[in-house]
């Protein structure tokens, strides 16, 4: 009985924490400034992206250095649909982003998953940079380095164009994005705790052995790549209306690096790690940028510190502290 009770209580504590955090996020615009709410909104979009990235990185053992590619696909989908086709329904934008990114991820993934480690990272980086050049050079289509404007989308069919911009973003769009993040977090949780998720972890730990146990390693890596790409595209599509303007910088490799940084900062070994990393990164960057123009220097130092001292990231540090606490009892 006792161990069961322990597990139950542990589980319910975790669920409780999640509910409290969810409610805090939901209520944030009521007591925080619009600026903070806006930063939080961008975090929600990034959170969807890093959830996807970590399915590949933390769960399958493949480090993508071109994930901004899919994010840009999502963001440009929003720009094209709203700007060129006057399709303003956010739901349509999300669905189209998922379809386009899945097709592209299936094609690119079929090539990339044949490689692992640095080769995989470099290949994904190369595809990201190819798209960057495409966006830059086909300017009559993409607006080149000036990018494209993203019009304000309808949410659940409601035209909200009368509301002031910041209010739209920090109220309606904020809640909309948060709900999507919650749904996608739940779906990702289901994926990683499914038999498929187990197979991905087996591939990460030991692909050769996994293959001998009948796991089709390349095919499952490919599936993970597609899911991951679709998540990044949803994140990109959600981010686009928040920033109002998309440009090729979105798919530049340093932006992929930002996603990797968030994941490392929070801890890729933990399901919620990348999300923690995302929120800390966004608020820290904002703070540091307001203090000094050399914010990249400080972030470089943080990255170096992390890799050397806390490779498990923030989540790793927290969980080891929790373990210590329990051990002390």
């Amino acid at each position, binding site marked *: 009985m006792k161990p069961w009770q322990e597990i139950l209580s542990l589980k319910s504590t975790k669920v409780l924490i999640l509910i409290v955090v969810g409610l805090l996020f939901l209520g944030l615009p009521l007591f925080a400034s619009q600026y903070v709410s806006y930063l939080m909104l961008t975090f929600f979009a990034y959170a969807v992206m890093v959830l996807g990235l970590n399915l590949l990185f933390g769960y399958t053992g493949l480090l993508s250095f071109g994930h901004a590619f899919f994010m840009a696909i999502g963001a440009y989908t929003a720009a094209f649909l709203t700007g060129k086709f006057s399709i303003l329904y956010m739901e349509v934008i999300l669905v189209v982003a998922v379809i386009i990114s899945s097709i592209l991820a299936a094609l690119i993934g079929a090539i990339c998953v044949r490689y692992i480690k640095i080769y995989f990272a470099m290949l994904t980086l190369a595809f990201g940079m190819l798209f960057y050049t495409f966006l830059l050079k086909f300017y009559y289509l993409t607006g080149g380095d000036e990018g494209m404007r993203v019009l304000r989308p309808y949410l659940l069919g409601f035209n909200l164009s009368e509301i002031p911009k910041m209010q739209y973003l920090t109220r309606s769009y904020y809640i909309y994005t948060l709900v999507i993040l919650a749904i996608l977090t739940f779906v990702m949780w*289901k*994926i990683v*705790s*499914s*038999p*498929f*998720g*187990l*197979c991905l*972890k*087996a591939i990460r*730990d*030991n692909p*050769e*052995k*996994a*293959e*001998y*146990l*009948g*796991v*089709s*390693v390349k095919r*499952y890596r490919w*599936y993970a790549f597609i899911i991951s790409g679709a998540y990044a595209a949803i994140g990109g599509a959600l981010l686009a209306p928040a920033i109002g303007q998309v440009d090729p910088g979105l798919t530049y490799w340093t932006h992929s690096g930002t996603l990797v940084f968030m994941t490392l900062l929070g801890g890729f070994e933990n399901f919620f790690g990348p999300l923690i990393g995302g929120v800390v990164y966004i608020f820290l960057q904002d703070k540091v940028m307001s203090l000094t123009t050399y914010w990249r220097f400080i972030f470089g130092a943080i990255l170096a510190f992390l890799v050397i001292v806390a490779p498990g990231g923030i989540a790793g540090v927290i969980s080891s502290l929790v373990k210590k606490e329990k051990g002390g009892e």
Partner: protein
Amino acid sequence: MVILSASDLRKYYGEFCALDGVSFKINEGEFVSIIGPNGAGKTTLINVLTGLLTPNTGKVFYKDKEITGIGPEKLSKLGVARSFQLVNIFPNFTVLEFLMVAVVSRLGKGTNFYSSLLRDQKVTSEALEVAMLFGLVGKRDVLTKNLPQGDKKMLDVASAFALHPEVILLDEPTSGVSTSDKNKIMETLVSASKKIGIKSIIQVEHDMDIVFSFSDRIIALHQGKILSDSAPGEIEKNEEVVCTVLGQKECFKIFSALMHEHTGKGGKA
């Protein structure tokens, strides 16, 4: 009935010839041991038989189906499994999760994206069943990287058994285990294979006591060639050959094992 056969297998690593025309047939119900000194080509042979390596010439058949170079994943689905000489585990998995991987893939549930693994009674109970056969139930929630060496080895073997294969190839299942534990492990293996319904076992083994007391047939390899292929009782006829292969020390061991058997103490499984 022949369950696994190899014809004229040749495998080169550059200039070096690891397998030099190896042919044999394994029958249903047989326990076959492959012996030979280091570098004789034993592990290469297992790798070729399990389709990890494609031979330069020659073919491998499982029943009537050609499986040369087919690759581990397809092979496991046909009903052939293997374990490894060196510990080959998923370090961050618990014992139960480890066995679940094999069960999930056997039941074809790997592409199940959305159901909860923990609530899957069938997968859990089948994984536990195998853990039970190998005495690992008590350690079901232990991380495999924290297991003692012997248990890691057992788990690797157990995961291959969890695939419910018809043929299993074991690459030195008792290496790195104390002599006193070796017999126990072999008995566990044999009884587990009966319960699971494994038809034939092929093992690479160095310990001659084990080889002689458990095998129906012994295949001796030397420099990529089969030197002898016979029942343990008949090995005396090949005494000279085998002694060349195994060296003085092993030769002595063989004879002491034989003496053992003649005095009626050794029992075949």
